[in-house]
């Protein structure tokens, strides 16, 4: 168990590395550190490299070639094709068809699931009621249930509440399945905040929502960033729920990605497949890059304290 005051003060140096020894000189161990890191990065970059290179080659070059070699002749055609020409069934407008659907699904799903989970975390930490921990335990157990098992029961629930086939039904599903991990993160984060803040606000007469919005939320930017990243990544890449709980006109981008990649007949256009994956991954990736340090800080606060 970490002493709360200690960890809280420690968060001040979250922005900078401290590590074991702050000596600054070029030594054998320094070289080794960079060496190992570079080897590790090589392992992480290799598949990305192959994807990038392949997506910039024409099909003849892909077929004969060394998968690691850069393209002899760079072409952006696979990217254009993946975005706007690749066919899925009768519709030949590539990933662009599902892009806005994905946006329309992701934004409300991310927002609502974060709102719900943050309120859960807040209630669990500051307004404990009888059995609240048990519900939380069940929620965590839920994180381990394979999604496939839940497909039919959820179909029936959605049918009964009239949301089957509706984008809001899908939003509900994402909210439910994002809840366990997000609640865990928010709960741990709120628990790490000094209790005095909460008490002072109580004395000032603030109520449940007042404390939440005026005291906690403004202090919780890092953890909201983390939650957003996890949810955007998960929901943006979701295929199973998107295809089951909506209709063709609302299908997310991953359905087109799957259709482009998994067509079994004919020549597989590897370059278009790779370009399509990279395009689909751009949105979560951009969010990683933009959020930068906030992400690490949020993770530190949400996953680590306690």
């Amino acid at each position, binding site marked *: 168990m970490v002493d709360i005051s200690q960890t809280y003060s420690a968060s001040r140096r979250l922005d900078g590395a401290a590590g074991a020894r702050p000596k600054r000189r070029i030594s054998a161990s320094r070289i080794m550190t960079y060496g190992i890191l570079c080897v590790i990065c090589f392992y992480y970059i290799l598949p990305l490299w192959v994807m990038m290179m392949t997506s910039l080659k024409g099909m003849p070059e892909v077929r004969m070639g060394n998968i690691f070699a850069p393209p002899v002749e760079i072409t952006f055609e696979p990217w254009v094709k993946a975005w706007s020409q690749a066919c899925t069934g009768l519709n030949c407008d590539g990933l662009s068809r599902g892009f806005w659907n994905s946006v329309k699904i992701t934004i409300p799903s991310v927002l609502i699931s974060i709102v719900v989970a943050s309120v859960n975390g807040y209630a669990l930490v*500051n307004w404990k009621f*009888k059995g609240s921990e048990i519900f939380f335990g069940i929620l965590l157990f839920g994180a381990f249930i394979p999604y496939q098992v839940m497909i039919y029961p959820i179909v029936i629930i959605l049918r009964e509440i009239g949301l089957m086939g509706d984008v809001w039904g899908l939003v509900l599903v994402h909210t*439910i399945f994002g809840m366990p991990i997000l609640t865990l993160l928010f709960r741990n984060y709120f628990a790490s905040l000094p209790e005095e803040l909460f008490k002072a606000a109580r004395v000032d007469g603030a109520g449940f929502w007042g404390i939440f919005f005026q005291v906690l939320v403004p202090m919780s930017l890092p953890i909201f960033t983390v939650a957003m990243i996890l949810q955007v990544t998960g929901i943006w890449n979701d295929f199973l729920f998107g295809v089951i709980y909506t209709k063709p006109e609302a299908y997310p981008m*991953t359905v087109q990605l799957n259709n482009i990649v998994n067509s079994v007949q004919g020549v597989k256009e590897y370059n278009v497949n790779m370009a399509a994956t990279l395009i689909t991954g751009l949105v979560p990736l951009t969010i990683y890059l933009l959020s930068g340090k906030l992400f690490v800080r949020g993770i530190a606060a949400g996953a680590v304290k306690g």
Partner: protein
Amino acid sequence: MSVIDPVAPRAAGRPKKLIANPMAKIAALPMIMTALVIFIGCSVWTVVHSFTKSKLLPSSQFVGFDQYERLWSTRRWLASVENIAIYGLVALVFSLVVGFVIAVLLDQKVRAEGAFRTIILFPYSLSFIVTGLVWQWILNPDFGIQYIVRGWGFENFTFDPLHNPDTVLAALLMAGLWQGTGLVAVILLAALRGVDEDIWKASRVDGVPAWKTYIWVVIPILRPAFVTATVLIATGIVKLYDLVVALTNGGPGIASEMPAKYVYDAMFGKQNLGQGFAASTMMLLSVLLILIPWAIFEFRGKKRG
């Protein structure tokens, strides 16, 4: 339950009237509903239907333990259980160890830390639908690593893990760790940043080597972060499906089958819901078997402390 339950010691100090606040209960309603209706309700529904003859549609024709008898006499299921045990254990240990090592290295005031961090994290953002294909290529003897190394003059070099039942799990691990370790490393890195500076000063004064300090002092402090990471990794392992389908589709033979895939194929390929439910009940049961003793242990330990 140090991570899961950081609140317990504080609750005692709270004024009693807060406990009765109705707003909190209303606000927690979505969570309560989800826990009861979805996670408990659907689990119970699944367990009940695992005793039926449900085929394409859920039915209520009960057949006792028939589905379980068949399950445990099916070689594919037995292989799946064995595979996930091996994969799960190795993946868990490797993710934590490799993740920790990366975190420690990144915590050495390295230059371009942000770039390194982004690089190890980006696989997490990509869908496995295609990344499985890339790994297939890299591991393929005809144009992947083997081809390249032979091209360097090592004519006898053999590297074909995907088509050998004994090594296919290693191939899965290569791709699985590639996707998941980054997040673990970032979690642990964040936690390392939370370790008090004084600990390092003290250990330096005492002349304790850095690696010893890490193992005996830092890791115990990071315990909560390790628990969070373990929960994240473990949920991923239990649900392991996409990667297997994309990379090996269970092959060669049944050498890389996994329980979640068995469930999916039974329910939607074989149109035998009962069998799929029986398999998922076994999965739920094993999760409970691991979670409950751990929860009890944690909870008791705290009360005594």
